[in-house]
């Protein structure tokens, strides 16, 4: 073998920051070839993909709007992933939380009061928790794998939302189209920056990330969760309550997903519609791992992921790059980012030729 690969004793600090840069450079190079092969002028395509969304205040605000639900959900999921609890169904918990919050908003439709939004948030969190409680119960009581149950319940939640907006929650003055009434002002999140859609949920996402970081780093529950993930046998030996930790992981990730759903319907959407999420619950899984399951890494990863979506739209508008190409480009970016981790954890050296 021409190369020698050794595991580093400690993660390389320098490469920790350098490796994403390297990954982006590789993506740009590959993207250059890809866009050229598609008959595009690569430079404008790359510019509109990665840079132009960041050149205006509005662009940055949209980035935060798109990243907020991803970060909120991923932070919760990461806690579970660290403890080997595999909640794949955040999409469903988001939907169920949004339904709960939406019912509150519609129930108090037209009424005013500062208590409506907090009540919606509470309902959203409880809704998400309740929906995550199903896999938690089946897992702790019967040992049913949570990957299967949480994933299957995602489809059920989407159908439930559909049944509701086609039925009891339908706008009475909406010509029988499948959507609820538009929420009234008391049920809408305040806009932080005039002229944009930047809402309170984006700030909340950052606060949640910090709070979860504190929880995982400084509390006994956080410690137990980390041990459970890294050394299950040791956790058992130490007498940790495995079932209780499973409940904590699922309820926490479910609750945060429900909150993200609440922010979406009370923020950019402003009503209940059949399609409230373009796959945030699934994308958040990538975000969680891209951020190395660390709340602050997740904030960065969420922003990168959001940029790749907005950049894709941008490149379609500005240079007519087909959407399929943006999917390929996004995949490449993720591949390189994931691969670059290797350099952080391993040392690659040219092996000295052994002369006999």
């Amino acid at each position, binding site marked *: 073998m021409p190369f020698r690969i050794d595991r580093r004793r400690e993660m390389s600090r320098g490469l920790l920051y350098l490796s994403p840069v390297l990954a982006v450079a590789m993506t740009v190079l590959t993207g250059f070839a890809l866009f050229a092969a598609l008959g595009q002028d690569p430079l404008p395509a790359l510019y509109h993909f990665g840079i132009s969304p960041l050149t205006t205040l509005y662009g940055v605000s949209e980035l935060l709007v798109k990243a907020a639900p991803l970060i909120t959900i991923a932070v919760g999921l990461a806690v579970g992933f660290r403890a080997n609890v595999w909640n794949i169904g955040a999409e469903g918990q988001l939907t169920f939380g949004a339904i709960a919050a939406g019912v509150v908003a519609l129930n108090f439709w037209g009424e005013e009061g500062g208590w409506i939004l907090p009540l919606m948030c509470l309902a959203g969190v409880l809704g998400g928790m309740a929906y995550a409680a199903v896999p938690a119960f089946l897992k702790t009581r019967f040992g049913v794998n949570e*990957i299967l149950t949480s994933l299957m319940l995602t489809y059920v939640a989407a159908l439930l939302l559909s049944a509701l907006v086609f039925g009891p929650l339908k706008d009475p003055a909406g010509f029988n189209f499948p959507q609820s009434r538009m929420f009234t002002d008391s049920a809408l999140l305040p806009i932080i920056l005039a002229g944009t859609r930047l809402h309170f949920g984006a700030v909340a996402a950052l606060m949640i990330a910090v709070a979860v970081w504190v929880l995982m780093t400084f509390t006994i529950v956080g410690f137990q969760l980390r041990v459970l993930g890294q050394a299950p046998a040791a956790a058992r030996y130490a007498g940790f309550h495995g079932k209780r930790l499973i409940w904590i992981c699922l309820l926490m990730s479910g609750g945060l997903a429900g909150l993200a759903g609440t922010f979406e319907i009370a923020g950019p959407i402003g009503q209940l519609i059949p399609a409230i999420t373009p796959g945030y619950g699934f994308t958040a899984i990538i975000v969680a*791992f891209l951020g190395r399951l660390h709340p602050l890494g997740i904030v960065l990863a969420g922003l990168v992921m959001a940029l790749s979506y907005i950049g894709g739209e941008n490149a379609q508008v500005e240079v007519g790059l087909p959407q399929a190409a943006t*999917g390929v480009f996004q*995949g490449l970016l993720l591949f390189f980012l994931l691969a670059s981790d290797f350099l952080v954890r391993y040392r690659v050296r040219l092996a000295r030729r052994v002369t006999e």
Partner: protein
Amino acid sequence: MSAETAVLVMLTVISAATPLLFAALGELVVEKSGVLNLGVEGMMLAGAVAGFAVTVSTGSAVLGIVCAALAGALMALIFGVLTLTLAANQVATGLALTIFGVGLSALLGAGFVGVPVAPLPKLAVPGLSDLAVIGPLLFAHDALVYLSILATAGIGWFLARTRAGMILRAVGESDESAHSIGYNVIRVRYLAVLFGGAMSGLAGAFLSLSHTPMWAEEMTAGRGWIALALVVFSSWRPGRVLLGAYLFGGVTILQLHAQGAGGLGIPAQVLSMLPYLATIAVLTIIAAGPWRGRLDAPACLGKLFRPPT
């Protein structure tokens, strides 16, 4: 319902279940080796577009099917290089593979939208296919349906009875021990991942050449995810994958029939929930029943392994 109709309904179920079966069987082998590849949907789409494009361009369905398997394996190779050689996280890489596959297949398939193709021919077994009821039910399918059944039995035999299968399981249960005995963990996992990709490719080819002979973007419509769930459902046993795929396909078709028969007054959305709820219910019954206890996943599933050098 007459016997003939019952047979037709069964054939619909088989057709709906076969892509799930292929993809889930492939993923089962991958997971048995200790690797979790969530990119099934992306690999299926690669197989679907490759199978369709090659069949249309060359006129040979056999070549199309082979290329579909190769396309799936090629996608899996990307996953393998990232997760096995470069030790990237498997969950994230698998999801990224799906995003990549959706885009790539749409890009490559753009020229094949709206193009018809002859469905795979049914291979009737002479003499047997004319028998009443069991003839059409058992002996008049296309090659891929037979292959999916053979693959179920073959993989079951391979994992349980062969030395190579034993090594694969050992690698999935305890990579460190397998390595110390002298097995090449990474090589075994590469082979498993490539096999899984090829099977997903075949699942895609079945969709674009037999189930609905056409190419359309994102035509897998989430079946890759169902296949992943079925592996868990099966508790990592090939026979139960077959059961799960046919159960899921069966309930899906059943709810469509219930709707056609007037819907029994139940909203269509609620009927559409049935396949998902039934899968959860059956798995819970299996888990809670007297035979409980053997649901465990391969011990090293999803964990990183790099041989110490």
